[in-house]
C-alpha cells in the first residue's frame, strides 16, 4: 500500500485498492484546510509533481505507487515569502521599463526589443504571483482585506496600456511607445508596489 507522509510524518489515510492517488491527495488537502496549512510541494515516488501537470500523476491507482510526500507551510508565512520575492522583482521591472524607453529615445531598437520581451514576461509573472496570493490569503485569518476592486481596475488599465504598446508598435510611433513604457506602465507598477508593501506590513509579525 502507498505510504503517505505530510511534512515527514505518516498521515493516516484509508484507501480502497482501486482508489487513485488523487484520493490520498484530496484527503490531505481537506485535513490541511482544517489545520490552515497550505500545500507547497508534492513528491510521488521521488518525483516532484509539477503544479500545472498533476493529472497524469494522480490518475494512477494508489496501489501501484509506494510513497506520497506532501510538504505544507503556514499560509501567512508563505504569503510573506511570495511578497518578498515580488517586491525586488517590481524594482527590476521598473528599471527595465526606463531602460527600454531610453533605448527607444536613443534609437537602439534591437536592445529595446529584447527589453520589451523581458518586460512582457515580467508582467505575466507579476500578475501570476498576485493571483496566487488571493487563495493563499483567504486561509489566513489575520490577513488584511485585499483592495480587490482597485486591483481589478488596475488590471484593466494595465490591459489598456499593453494595447497602447501594441498599437504604437504597429504604427511605428516610438515616442508613444516609450511613454507607455516609462510612464503608463510605471504608474501601474507603483500601484502594485504600494499594494504589496501594505500587505507585507500587515502580515509580518
Amino acid at each position, binding site marked *: 500500500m502507498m505510504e503517505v507522509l505530510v511534512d515527514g510524518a505518516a498521515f493516516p489515510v484509508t484507501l480502497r485498492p482501486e482508489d487513485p492517488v488523487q484520493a490520498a491527495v484530496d484527503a490531505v488537502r481537506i485535513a490541511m484546510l482544517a489545520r490552515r496549512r497550505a500545500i507547497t510541494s508534492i513528491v510521488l515516488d521521488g518525483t516532484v509533481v509539477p503544479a500545472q501537470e498533476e493529472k497524469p500523476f494522480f490518475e494512477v491507482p494508489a496501489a501501484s505507487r509506494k510513497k506520497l510526500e506532501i510538504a505544507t507551510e503556514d499560509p501567512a508565512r508563505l504569503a510573506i515569502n511570495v511578497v518578498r520575492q515580488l517586491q525586488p522583482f517590481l524594482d527590476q521591472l521598473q528599471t527595465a521599463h526606463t531602460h527600454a524607453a*531610453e533605448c527607444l*529615445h*536613443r*534609437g*537602439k531598437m534591437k536592445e529595446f526589443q529584447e527589453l520589451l520581451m523581458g518586460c512582457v514576461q515580467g508582467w505575466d509573472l507579476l500578475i501570476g504571483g498576485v493571483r496566487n496570493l488571493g487563495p493563499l490569503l483567504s486561509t489566513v485569518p489575520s490577513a488584511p482585506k485585499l483592495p480587490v476592486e482597485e486591483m481589478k481596475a488596475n488590471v484593466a488599465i494595465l490591459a489598456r496600456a499593453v494595447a497602447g504598446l501594441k498599437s504604437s508598435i504597429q*504604427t*511605428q*510611433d*516610438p*515616442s*508613444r511607445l*516609450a*511613454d507607455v513604457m*516609462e*510612464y503608463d506602465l510605471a504608474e501601474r507598477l507603483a500601484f502594485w508596489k504600494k499594494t504589496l508593501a501594505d500587505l507585507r506590513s500587515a502580515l509580518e509579525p
Partner: protein
Amino acid sequence: MSGYFAPNLRQLAFIDAELAERIGALPPPTAVKILPTRSGLPSALAVCTDGAEVALHSLHDPVKQAHRFIAGMELRPDVDAFAMIGMGLGYHVQELLRRVPAGRHVLVIESREDVLRAALESRDLGAILGRPHLHIFAGTDYVGFLDWLKVFLNGSNVDSLSVLRHMESYRLNPAFYGEISLEMEKATSRRQIELSTLVTYGEELETNVIRNLPQIASAAGVNRFTGALKGRPAFLIGAGPSLTQALPHLKRVQDRAVLVVADTATKLLLREGIRPHAAALLDMTDKTMKFFENLDAAEAPALVFDPDACWKTVHAYPGPRITFESIVPWTTWAALHSSPKGTMEKGISVAHTGYQFLREAGADPLILVGIDLGFPGDTTHAEGVVLGWGTGRVAPKMQNEVMLPSVTGGQIRSVVAFKTFVTVFEILVSRTAAKVVNTSPGGALIRGTENLPIEQAIERYVPAAEDPAGLMKARLAEAPPVDWGRFRRELDTLRGQIGAVGELSRSALRWLKQTERLDPSNKVDRAEFATHARKINKNRVQILAQGALLPLLQRVISGEALEVRRLGKEIRDAKDEEKRHRLEQQRMVYFFAAYLKATEHAGRELQHVLRELPA
C-alpha cells in the same frame, strides 16, 4: 495663434527670408495637433502619409526625451557640421545646439512645412533660431534641397558633415528623408573629390583659361543669343548609343531647328551629312583636339566653349567661337576688357554646357537626342563617334556601376558619373521655363522631361521650316571687335600687379625663414622676431589689399588653401600658446608660398598670351 509665432517668424527671416515668408503664408496646420504635456511644455501629434497619427515628442516630458536622444549621439569634435533630419517642435535641435562645439554649422531639414509652422506657433524658439551657423530647409522639393545643400557647402568651410535622424520626424516622410540622407552623406565626399580634382588640375585649368583669354575676348558672348530661339525648337545631341538610330531624323530636321552637338559627336554628324549649328566643348584636356581634327573651316559649326576648356583645342578650332562668363574670375576680367559675354553656369558634362546655351537662347522645346546616360545595349557610345573615354563596348562588370531608373519604367545599367549628370539635368530642367523632351528610347530617366520617340517629337514640335543657320550666323556677326591695343595694355598692367604680389610673397618667405632660427627665450632674438613679424604682417596686409586681383590667383593654390584651412581649424582647437604660435607660422608659410606659386604660374602664362596677341 500664440504670441510665439510673430517673433519666431521674424527670427526665421534672419536665417532665410524666403522660407519665413512661405511659412508665414501657410494656413494654421490641420494635420498637426499640439498637445500639452505633464511637464508643461507642448508636444505634437502629426498625421503621416499613410494616415497614422504619431507623436513627434514624448507626451510626458519632451525635454528629457531630447536630452537622452542627443546624449546617445556621437558628436565628434572634428566634424564641421551636423545635419538633423527632422525639426518637429525643436526640442532635440535645441539640445543638439547646446551640445555641439561652438562654431560648428547645424543644418535642420524638416520635410513638413506645417510641422515647422506648428513649431513656430507653439514654442519660443529663440534659443534655436538665434544661434549662429544654423541653416533650415523645409519642404519636399528634392531639387531645391540639392541646390540649398550646394549653396551651403560652397559658402562654408565644411569638410565633414554628420547626419543625425530624428526617428519620429523620419516616420512622417521616410522616402524623402531617405533620399536626402544619402545625398548628404555623399555630398561632403563629393566635395572632397571636387576639391582634390581642383588641387590636381587647378594649374591645368588656370593655364587653359589664361591662354584662352584672347579667344574669350574675341568670341561672341552667349548674351548675343539670349532669346534668339524664343519659341523655336532646338536639338541637343549627345553621343549616347541611341544617336545611331536618330541620325536619319536629325538629317531631316537640320534646316528646321538649331542643332547643338556634343564635341565627340561633331565629326560623326558631319560625316552623315548633318550640319550642326554649334558644337559644345567643356573638357580641359588636349584629347579634345581629336574631336575637331581636320575640320574644314567652311563646315565647322560655332564652338560654344567653356573658358576652362583645353586652350590648344580652342586655339586650333577653325570656326567661329561662342563663350560665356562663369564663376572663374578670369572670364569676368576678359569680358571687362573686351565686351560682356553673358554669364552661364559651368556644366559638369559637355551636354550640360550645350543645354545651358540653348536655354539661354530661349529654345522651346529643347529636344534631347542621344543623351542616354546609361547603357541600354552593349555599346557605350553611338557608332562612329570619336571616343572620349572607354573602348566603346560595355564591360560585363563596370567600375562604379549603378542601376538607374529608365525611361521605359525599368532600370538601366549606368555609372556613378552619369547618375550625377542625371541629377544635374534634373536641376537644370526644373529651372527651365521651356518644355524639355527626352527622345532616348531606353536611356536613363530624367525627371521633368517629356519622354517621346524622336519621330513623334519632330512631328509634334518641329513643324515649320526655319533658317537656323542664318539665324546663328546673324547673331555671330553682331559680336563687337576687340581693341587689342587696350587689351594688351590691361594685360601688361595685370602682369605687373601679379609680379608685385609675387615679390611681396618672396620677401615674406625669406623673413619667415630667418625667424625659424631665432630663439624666443633670448631677448635679442625676441626683438628681431618682432621686427620680422611686423614686416611679414605688412606684406600680408598688402597682398590681401589686392582685393580684385586675388581671386584670379586662387584656383592654382587650392591645395595650399586647403592646408591653410586645415591649419586654421587646428589653431582654433589648439590648447597651448606655443602650439598655436607654431601653427600660425606654418600657416603663414603656406600663405606666402601659395601666392608665390600662383603669381609665378600666372606670370608665365600671361607672357605666352602677350606674345601671341594680335598686333
